[in-house]
Each structure stands twice: as structure tokens, then as C-alpha cells.
């Protein structure tokens, strides 16, 4: 992987370096995609609010191999001078260089921004932004360990919602999010990276169980309309369970 152009600001290594190639790579892939859980089971969630003392609100979420820290700063003054009646929500996602199997350059790229947009979409309708004119709420998410983008977006939305609640920002409800992957005709909830890669399509659903409303659906890949509707229903049911976990951790 070639070094980035941000050379001047960091300590640099050699111009080009390559991740190690393993001699038994092909056999390994077949083992990894065998799922050890039932298709409807999600991985256990560990959610801890209030870990970052410097921030107004924070949360740390861990589900097996996905570790995400989230901090909320705000409401604070907007940098722009244009007047806005409603507050702004700014979601920024950052991957640590060691979070993925291949080292990521520390620069932010398109993938970070697209995850930021998904999480923004999931939580923006739950916050009462009309109470904070001219202000910005900053949500910073750092992905410490990554096990699939779907898992990141789902866990990231949970962490963001918990951090906002920890910061005492007025919300309409907590947001719960669940991801799913389609393998053949089966729906597997909470896929890991290997499972998602082996699937034909994935779906991420975010909703507010307290108000029984859905805030965001992100679907990619191939799936028939019936299957995707069934998938959404299953995710929705699971979100209600996840919601109680989030509420319990905030007590």
C-alpha cells in the first residue's frame, strides 16, 4: 500500500509496503464463512456510556469483534455565519489504522464519509434539533476494530444514540439498529465481515421502537422484494430487543 500524500505531518515509513500474503489463504476462507450462531441470533452487545470524560456524552460499544467509541460534543456554536433555525448534526467517522485486516491510511476517505452519512440518517430524526438554533451537535465516532461495514453502521448508530442520551440532549426516542445478510433464501442477522462478503445482499435497518417508527433502511446487493420485506420485519423485531439493552445501559 503506497504512502499517502500527507507525508509532511506524520512519521513516514518506506514508500511502498505490502500486507503479508499467507500461503494457506484459500483454505481459510471456506472455514470462516460457516456460521456458528443460529440465523436469528445477534452477537452479544456490551454497551457502556460515559467512558470519555472530556466529552458532553459518550458511549463505547463492543460486539465480539466490532469495537466502537463515540463522543458527543454539543450543542456548541456553529462555525458558519448563516443563520439556521434548526440545529445542525455533524457525524464524523474515523477508522484507526489497525482496525481492518489491511492497514488503513490515517486519511479520511469516501468509505468514512458514507458511513457517517448512514449514521447521520439513522439518528437525525430522533433529535429535537428545533430546540438548538444556531448550534451544532458534533458526533465523533472512532472505529477501533472493524468486523464488517454493516456491523459498523449498526453498532455506530447504537453508540451515537446512547452517547446523545448520555449527553442529556433532548430526543424523541432511542434509535436501535440491526443488520442482516441474505445467503440463498436464508436471512442471517448481524453478519460478520466474512458472512457479509459471502452473502448476495445486505440490509441495515434503524428504527425508534418507542415510537414504532423507522428512521433509515440501507439495502445493498441482490434480494427479491418478498425476501427484503421479511428481512425488514425480522430486523424490526430484533431492534425492539436491542432497544431494551440500550435503555438498561443508560440507567
Amino acid at each position, binding site marked *: 500500500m503506497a504512502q499517502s500524500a*500527507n507525508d509532511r505531518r506524520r512519521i513516514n515509513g518506506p514508500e511502498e509496503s505490502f500486507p*503479508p500474503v499467507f500461503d494457506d489463504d484459500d483454505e481459510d476462507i471456506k472455514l470462516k464463512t460457516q456460521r456458528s450462531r443460529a440465523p436469528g441470533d445477534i452477537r452479544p452487545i456490551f454497551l457502556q456510556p460515559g467512558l470519555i470524560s*472530556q466529552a458532553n456524552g459518550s458511549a463505547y460499544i463492543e460486539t465480539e469483534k466490532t469495537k466502537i467509541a463515540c463522543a458527543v460534543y454539543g450543542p456548541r456554536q456553529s462555525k458558519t455565519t448563516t443563520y439556521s433555525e434548526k440545529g445542525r448534526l455533524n457525524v464524523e467517522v474515523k477508522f*484507526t489504522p489497525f482496525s481492518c485486516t489491511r492497514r488503513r491510511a490515517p486519511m479520511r476517505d469516501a468509505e468514512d464519509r458514507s458511513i457517517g452519512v448512514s449514521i447521520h440518517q439513522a439518528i437525525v430524526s430522533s433529535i429535537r434539533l428545533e430546540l438548538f438554533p444556531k448550534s451544532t451537535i458534533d458526533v465523533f465516532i472512532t472505529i477501533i476494530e472493524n468486523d464488517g461495514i454493516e456491523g459498523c453502521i449498526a453498532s455506530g448508530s447504537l453508540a451515537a444514540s446512547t452517547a446523545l442520551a448520555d449527553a442529556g440532549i433532548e430526543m424523541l426516542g432511542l434509535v436501535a439498529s440491526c443488520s442482516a445478510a441474505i445467503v440463498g433464501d436464508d436471512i442471517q442477522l448481524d453478519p460478520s465481515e466474512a458472512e457479509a462478503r459471502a452473502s448476495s445482499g445486505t440490509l441495515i435497518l434503524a428504527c425508534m421502537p418507542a415510537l414504532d417508527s423507522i428512521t433509515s433502511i440501507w439495502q445493498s446487493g441482490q434480494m427479491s422484494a418478498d425476501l427484503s420485506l421479511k428481512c425488514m420485519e425480522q430486523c424490526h423485531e430484533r431492534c425492539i430487543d436491542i432497544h431494551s439493552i440500550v435503555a438498561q445501559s443508560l440507567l
Partner: protein
Amino acid sequence: MSSSSVTNPSAADETLRAQIFQRLHPRVYLERFIAENIRPDGRTFDEWRSVSVNAGSISTADGSALVRMGDTTIVCGVKAEIAEPELDRPEQGFLVPNIDLPAICSPKFKPGPPTEEAQVLSDRLNEALIASGALPLSSLCIHPGKAVWTLYVDCTCINYDGNAFDAALLAMLGALRNTTLPKATYNEETGRTTCSRQTRSPLQITRNFTSTSFGVLDTSHVLSDPTAFEEPLMDVTLTVIVDDRGDLISTTESGGAILEETLLRCINRAKERALQLKG
């Protein structure tokens, strides 16, 4: 007839007034505590915050460590990649340390490229690791002149409550000690290197060292392990790096002049601290 409810302010009011005073006049607030020989968080001048190190929790990294020094939380991960060595140093691998202070860790950092503080910290950490020779770069050689290991040691601060340098150095050393490299074989004919997943061997760390930071206020008060509130108010900051045999690796001082006896006292305290942490 009691008027006590009017004359005694409630505890919540007092806390609020103390917080406002802290925001408006930080230096005077700190000096009031110093006059009583105590610090705002309750420690004495010599006390260090409790340190906890958790190694090996990140599976995607070849080695990792999470260090908590009081509230300062730093997570460090090591990723190993293969590169061609420099022409004039064909048997030496690369060690690339970096620290990132993202916007998540403190309200004073804004999102964007590394700030001056992060760049200075990265550079100091690089000097400390390379100059001390803790990891001989020749141990990272796979095939002289063709393939060597490059270790990217990346630290990310999750919560910044002062003294990031000490915590980052501890995290980097912890991550390096936790790192295992797969066995690599270089194929002369194809020029490719393949690794084996089965055998992994740890790095050869020859030296173990700890860093201790102090802040000096008014040339006479030496506070060890300053927090994020105390750090900007210090006149002089002093960092001493000592290895586990008691030898001095480096001393850095910035901000102003200090007395020689203060410097010697700090070096001695750093040596005591290194012994304390070793146990």
C-alpha cells in the same frame, strides 16, 4: 426563628460557583489548591494516577495495547507489512510510530489533519523509540536487500486528560511486546514473500523503559503527571525517560528555565517510578 436556610448556600450552588471560577480564572483556581499543598483532583504533588494496561484485545492488529492513565485513554495497534529495505541499509526493517489526537478525545481538537501537538508528540515518540534501540531493526529482516518487515505502530487517543506522551509511550511498548510476526520465507525465484499462519514469533525487545512527565509551576512547585486542566498552566514541562536498569535514556524540557536541583530531583523520582511500575 432560624435564618440558616438563607445564609447557607446549597451544595449544588457552591459546586456551580467553583466550576465558573475554574473556567474564568484557571490559574488562580490552581494556585489556591497549590497553597494548600494539594491538587484539584485530590492528589499530592508527587502522586501519579493509576495506570492500567490491557494488551492483545484487538484481533485485526498484530499486537495491541490499551492504556488508561487516570482518564487519559490511548489505544495502540501494530500492523506489520513487508517492504523493500533501503539501499544503504539492506538488513534493517522499518519502525513507523505515529500518534493521532482526533476530535473525539477533547473539545480543543478539531477534525482535520494532525495538529501541531500531535505532530510534536509523534516526533518525540519516534525519537524515543529509535534512539533507545529497544527494538533492533536488524531483527526485522526477512531477506537482506530484498524483504524486511515494516511495523506501523499507530496510537489513537480516545480520551485526553493530560500527559499523553507517557501514556502513548507505554501503549507503544505494550503493543510491541504483544506483537507476534508470522514466519516469512522469501522465494528467490519469484521474488515474493509468503507467510505462514501457523507459526508466529514475538519481537525481540531488548530494553524496557518508562517515561515520567512533570510540570513546574512558579519554579518551586513540581507536579507529576499533570492533567489536562493543569498542563496549559504549567510554566515548564519536563519529561524524563528511564530504562529498567535505571539508566537515563532522554530528558526533555520545554517552557522556561528550571533549577538544576529540580532537574536532578525529577530524574531521581523518575527512576523510582520506573522501579515501581516494573513491579
